[in-house]
């Protein structure tokens, strides 16, 4: 079956879910307040404090100017030892197309999300498009059952775990993670080495600011409230024998944080970022218009959220007119429906982003052509 038919079939099944906007408002406001305050703090100040605290906490900090730096670092790391790696996926992972890097370099790895693992088995490259195909594959349920039986053993044996982070607090050197279903948290728990890869935009100055963001995001993303929240500030350590500190008591004995720049630093001072970064990923727009997630995956985009799109446009996909055209196409469709339910991000921002894309050299005709094709898909 062609992808288009799959998408059409999928879209027919899913229905918009309108969450209780009022119930979410306190959480949204809490995050908004933190974001407004925190972005007044200069990034270099944050980073200086972060470095000091990570140093004190024995967390290794790697500053990656570009995604190439990340992949070079990982190559070096993975060459040294016969490793088994567990990966919890995160937005920066897709930004850097790490899924391609791992396959190209023949690095043995297991995804902690059965959907991704299934996609890897079937298609090798775990691109957004392939993930979507895996999502709607009827054999996924059985695969997941089998996966769950084996994952405990994999967790026992694995040497390294890679994950993202929801937030990082500079003044304590703390990393905030969410574990929705018991699997994603394993990357940070059982291996001997834990590597966190996350963007500069995740660094907050104050512990309680980062906490507020993490706890409220959790409330928004997981309305049932069953997901665990973890904060990690040092590798596993103990002082129980004569108060002598030893690392690696139970969980990871080494903890590394790779901070990804990839154009973010330059972006922070731009007006468009100041506007768009207010979006806190509540995902309500995605719920109201389920086609957004499907559409973005169909167009092989890893995200439909504006802050992430801006980061990609400014960094990873800079100069990649092909991908930028698909982003423009996506926005041409979305502009018809977009309205932030909380009026946090103004409606017309989508036009500014499109303007920026066309100014960067994206062909308007090309974008509208792709948009037209996709529109047919959605409207049937």
């Amino acid at each position: 079956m062609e992808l288009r038919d799959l998408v059409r079939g999928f879209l027919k099944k899913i229905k918009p879910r309108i969450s209780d906007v009022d119930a979410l408002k306190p959480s949204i406001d809490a995050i908004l307040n933190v974001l407004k305050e925190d972005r007044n703090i200069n990034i270099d100040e944050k980073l200086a404090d972060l470095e000091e605290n990570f140093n004190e906490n024995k967390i290794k900090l790697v500053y990656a100017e570009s995604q190439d730096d990340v992949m070079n670092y990982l190559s070096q790391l993975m060459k040294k030892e016969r490793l088994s790696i567990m990966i919890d996926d995160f937005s920066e992972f897709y930004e850097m197309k790490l899924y391609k890097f791992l396959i190209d370099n023949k690095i043995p790895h297991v995804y902690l999300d059965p959907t991704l693992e299934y996609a890897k088995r079937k298609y090798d490259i775990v691109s957004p498009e392939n993930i979507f195909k895996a999502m709607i594959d009827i054999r996924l349920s059985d695969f997941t059952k089998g996966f769950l039986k084996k994952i405990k053993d994999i967790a026992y044996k694995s040497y390294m775990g890679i994950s993202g982070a929801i937030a990082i607090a500079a003044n304590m050197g703390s990393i905030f993670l969410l574990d929705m279903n018991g699997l994603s948290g394993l990357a940070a728990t059982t291996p001997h080495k834990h590597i966190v890869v996350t963007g500069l935009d995740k660094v907050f100055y104050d512990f309680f600011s980062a906490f507020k963001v993490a706890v409220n995001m959790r409330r928004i993303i997981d309305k049932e409230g069953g997901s665990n929240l973890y904060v990690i500030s040092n590798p596993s350590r103990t002082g129980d024998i004569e108060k002598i500190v030893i690392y690696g008591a139970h969980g990871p004995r080494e903890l590394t944080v790779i901070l990804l720049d990839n154009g973010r630093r330059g972006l922070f001072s731009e007006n468009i970022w100041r506007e768009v970064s207010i979006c806190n990923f509540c995902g309500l727009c995605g719920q109201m218009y389920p086609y957004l997630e499907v559409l973005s995956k169909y167009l092989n985009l890893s995200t439909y959220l504006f802050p992430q799109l801006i980061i990609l446009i400014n960094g990873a996909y800079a100069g990649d007119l092909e991908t930028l055209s698909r982003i423009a196409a996506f926005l041409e469709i979305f502009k018809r429906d977009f309205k932030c339910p909380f009026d946090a991000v103004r409606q017309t921002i989508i036009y500014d982003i499109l303007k920026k894309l066309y100014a960067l050299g994206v062909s308007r005709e090309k974008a509208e052509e792709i948009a037209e094709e996709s529109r047919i898909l959605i409207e049937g």
Partner: protein
Amino acid sequence: MALKGEFKRIWGRYAAEMRTAIKDKTFRTGVSRATKSYEEGITPLLERFKESSTLAEEVRRIKEKAIENIEDLIKMAERSFTEKGIKVYLAKDADEAKQIIGKIVGSGKIIVKSKSITTEEIHLREYLIEQGNEVWETDLGEFIIQIAKERPMHLVTPAMHVPRERVARLLKELFKRSYDPNDIPELVKAVSDFLREKYFTADVGIIGANAIAAKDGCVVLIHNEGNIRMVTCIPNKLIIVAGIEKIVPTLEDAFKVVYITARYAEYKVAGYFDVIAGPKTISLPSGERVSSVGPSEIHLILLDNGRSRMINDPLFKEAAYCLRCGACMYSCPVFKITAGKFGGPVYMGGIGVIWTYFVHGPEYAIPGAYSCLIDGRCYERCPMKIDTPRMIKELRARYASGEAFRG
């Protein structure tokens, strides 16, 4: 007139343990090292983070309000946790708690457990072993205490009085091979490797709680070793044992509580914060919900065991604000010599005497009540500003008048 029967035995045992501890050079060295380290480190730490005392005051207010509204919070917690599939039990005393847990666990199981003074309070480990289960403490200090067959001498560093030579000997007995006592990393690795095996084969994980968020239906824990993460993420049954005084309204409140607990235990920040929110299940595309890795069953046992009486006694209510940070113990002139021998059979120090009176019984708190110098150093260092010297004097008054054993 003379000390009668059981009282005489309690006094005699207490005085004998004190004497032995005082004369034991290795014990004294260990205790001295730990308390000195705290004394030297805490003032600069609180200076460095000047907001600590203001936040501590805020936490005190949170605790005051929570204890004031404890009945409502218990009901709220019951609702929130049950909605998420976490089973909640109210245990009025130690026996009821053990029975409930015994039923959940059964027999012939492998259990991994994290450090929790509440589980010590009800002697849970001993009970589960009696029921035919294999139980392992996973906190390194508690593990050492377990294999040494002793009782913990401090809340945060329970084995602070055990020197490396003894640890090496204990491990030799257990693992049947020799260890170099000066190779501390090797000693730690021996236990760490052993426990890793146990985490992955265990049927049940048992933990305590540092704070419980009633509205959000979450349990919050702090640790530095990482053992709680292992206990709560791998076995597929999880049992949480917590006193009712741990309940606060929101997750934000709970975080402030644990943040201050770690700070006053002389940590800049706790190594790990774990928020446990629900059983781990995964939705299959087919619509089925299956167990994921980690607990598919979570049981929360809320323990009373005398806490209501403490809370409803206006003179002793503030003892329930105790965060178990251990600051008072490190600061106490008596504790610096006797460690946990000062206090009750489980709870340590002056605050431990008060707790013993209510959870274990007035008879067990008597010698402890008269071991206190009423000097007040504990009060100076307590983040909750609990006036333990005042309460010790009140306990003495109850003993002197006979009220302690009436009604």
